[in-house]
């Protein structure tokens, strides 16, 4: 027993050095072999598996390039990019959320690829895509997907309550929710991803849009203390009336998907990827005819529909020694062929794809909704300090939803804090 410890340490030592674990050591490779590192995101669409398949195909076409993919959850993606950028091994290509472009560019992290973009990409891509990857007239990334949070509703539940049509306004939607609850069809008609994370901002900003409001005035000053109150009061009302699933405050998108797919909610907001999964018998107890999807309707008398961008692009980091190869890789990932092949969970960024009957088949609702959404889509503030502003807003919005601070005061304090950011 006494010497057991030492023995065990020795055993572990030999294990660590044994060839089983030594697979990571560099194999001897040809002289022109180039290694790329790509940082992506662990998510549903494009899934890790999809990206790895795309990458494998890319490597087949370019035998001299070996791409190592890494995936981290969205919550770690920005931190990891920043931290790795400071290290000696930054990534070559990274996935960038639309709200991060301004910050990354201000820190000089992204390679300006304005002149390297093929014309076919410039002309063929959805216009909205190039907007968020362009800063001060220079292009810093290739759009990978355009997305927004769509309103998903359970048609069967609505029908059971006597509603044949999808809601036409926010008020209409709430009325439906009330009826569903009163008729005991579902306990909590609404579920949203309101955890203290960017997902909360995505939900909130969609309702902000629905009420015709925006984050900032023309000078970039945050004005949510006046404009944003309505949207927050709306969410608070839902919660206080027992219409919103109280667990929403710890939910991210995947939790919301599970709840909706199990038939425990009638309405939710989520990205495009949920459509395929909510109708997939392996992932969901819902049938195809149960799932409706549309662009979130606006508040009556203010707006017809509302959409806030949650798009992402691919960029080459300025420190990458392999600009050409990294660019080839991200262009490949966002090429029309690849995007059409993997369009099951994520719609392509190519205008022409949307006329393809194969793409529309079985999900006309979603394709119609996305066409509409992309034409009206607004963006969250793209500023170097957005991340911090967002963190402050998340805290105060949650406090308001818990009933700790009245919405008006919460947003006032949040805006005050944001103005004090150094």
């Amino acid at each position, binding site marked *: 027993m*006494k*010497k*057991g410890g030492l023995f065990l*340490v020795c055993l572990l030592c030999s294990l660590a050095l044994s060839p089983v*674990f*030594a697979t990571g050591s560099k194999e001897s490779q040809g002289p022109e072999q180039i290694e790329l590192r790509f940082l992506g995101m662990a998510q549903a669409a494009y899934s890790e598996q999809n990206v790895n398949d795309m990458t494998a195909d890319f490597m087949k076409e370019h035998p001299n390039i070996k791409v*190592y993919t890494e995936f981290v*959850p969205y919550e770690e993606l920005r931190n990891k990019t920043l931290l790795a950028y400071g290290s*000696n091994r930054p990534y070559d290509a990274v996935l960038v959320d639309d709200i991060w472009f301004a910050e990354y560019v201000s820190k000089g992290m992204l390679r300006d690829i304005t002149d390297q973009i093929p014309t076919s990409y410039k002309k063929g891509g959805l216009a909205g895509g190039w907007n968020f990857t362009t800063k001060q007239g220079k292009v810093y990334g290739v759009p990978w997907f355009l997305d927004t949070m769509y309103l998903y509703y359970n048609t069967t539940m609505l029908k059971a309550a006597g509603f044949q049509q999808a809601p036409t306004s926010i008020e209409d939607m709430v009325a439906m929710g009330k009826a569903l609850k009163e008729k005991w069809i579902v306990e909590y008609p609404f579920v949203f991803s309101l955890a203290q994370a960017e997902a909360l901002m995505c939900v909130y900003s969609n309702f902000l849009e629905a009420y015709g409001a925006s984050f900032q005035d023309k000078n970039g000053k945050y004005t949510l203390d006046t404009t944003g109150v309505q949207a927050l009061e709306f969410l608070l009302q839902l919660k206080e009336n027992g219409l919103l699933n109280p667990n929403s405050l710890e939910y991210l998108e995947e*939790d919301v998907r599970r709840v909706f797919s199990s038939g425990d909610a009638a309405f939710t907001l989520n990205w495009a990827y949920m459509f395929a999964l909510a109708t997939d018998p392996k992932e969901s107890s819902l049938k195809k005819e149960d799932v409706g999807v549309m662009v979130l309707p606006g508040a009556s008398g203010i707006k017809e529909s509302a959409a806030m961008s949650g798009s992402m692009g691919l960029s080459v980091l300025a420190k990458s020694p392999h600009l050409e190869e990294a660019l080839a890789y991200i262009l490949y990932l966002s090429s029309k062929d690849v995007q059409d092949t993997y369009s099951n969970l994520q719609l392509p960024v190519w205008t022409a794809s949307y006329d393809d009957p194969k793409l529309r088949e079985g999900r006309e609702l979603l394709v119609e909704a996305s066409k509409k959404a992309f034409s009206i889509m607004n963006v969250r503030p793209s500023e170097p300090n957005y991340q911090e502003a967002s963190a402050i807003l998340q805290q105060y919005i949650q406090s308001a939803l818990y009933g700790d601070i009245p919405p008006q005061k919460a947003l006032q304090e949040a805006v005050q804090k944001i103005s004090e950011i150094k």
Partner: protein
Amino acid sequence: MRTNKLFIVLKYAAIILLVMYILLPFLWLIIMSLSSSADLTTKPLHWIPGKIDITSYKRLLLVGLNSRGSLFLYGLRNSLKTALAAVIISIFVTIPASWVFSRYPGKKNIILKIAIFTFMLPPIAYALPLYRILSRIGLLDNSLSLALVYCTIILPFCVWLIKENIDTIPYDLEEAAIIDGAGFTKRISLIVLPLLLPALGTVALLSLLMAWDEYFYAMLYTNSQNAITLPVVISNLASGRQSNYNLIAAGGVLASLPPVCIGLLLQRSLVRGLMMGGVKD
């Protein structure tokens, strides 16, 4: 007599409660790892899975370029590498130092006190400059430099325990060697070290477990298969946008296996190690 019986009943009730308290959470983790997704997303839950499903273990242990399995195995390898390197460096460095502290007390005790004092510092207090230093000399995302960072946690602990142990080795043994003209190296390696070995094993194991457990530095300083450690791999696996509860659970079970096995097998020496610093006081 009646109170005695009541006492026995209460005692056994308490013990059953205790065993349930200890076992149930971890048992549930194991069950989750062997369940199918469907079993884990019903309301209320199926406590016993319909059939044993080991696909999550397969996914974590099968290797291929860019696969989840290879990342997990890299994590395992790096964790082992880092923890062992940290322990070996720490022990190697502390043995002579502790010997000095033990044999020549006095002003050198200040250094010992400083070592113990560093226990109190939150890692966050030197994580920032360490990050800058490592990044400047290009040693981020590197198992060896991470091991050196881990020394900050392990070293003070080792100094403390090893010194306490050397104190228990009688000085007379060395005096004989001094008369024979033995120098420091001989005195340490020939006389102290053999007597120290059992305690050293315990200290090494405890430090190994400490390094295995570390999350904060690994999260900050590693990002790829080069050096990423198991705790970071599984925390990424379990992060927000992942709802394969069985896969997460399987990762947790696999990561616990080494320390739990060490713990169950070598409990006595581990606990003795934990007591070393304390009992003498």
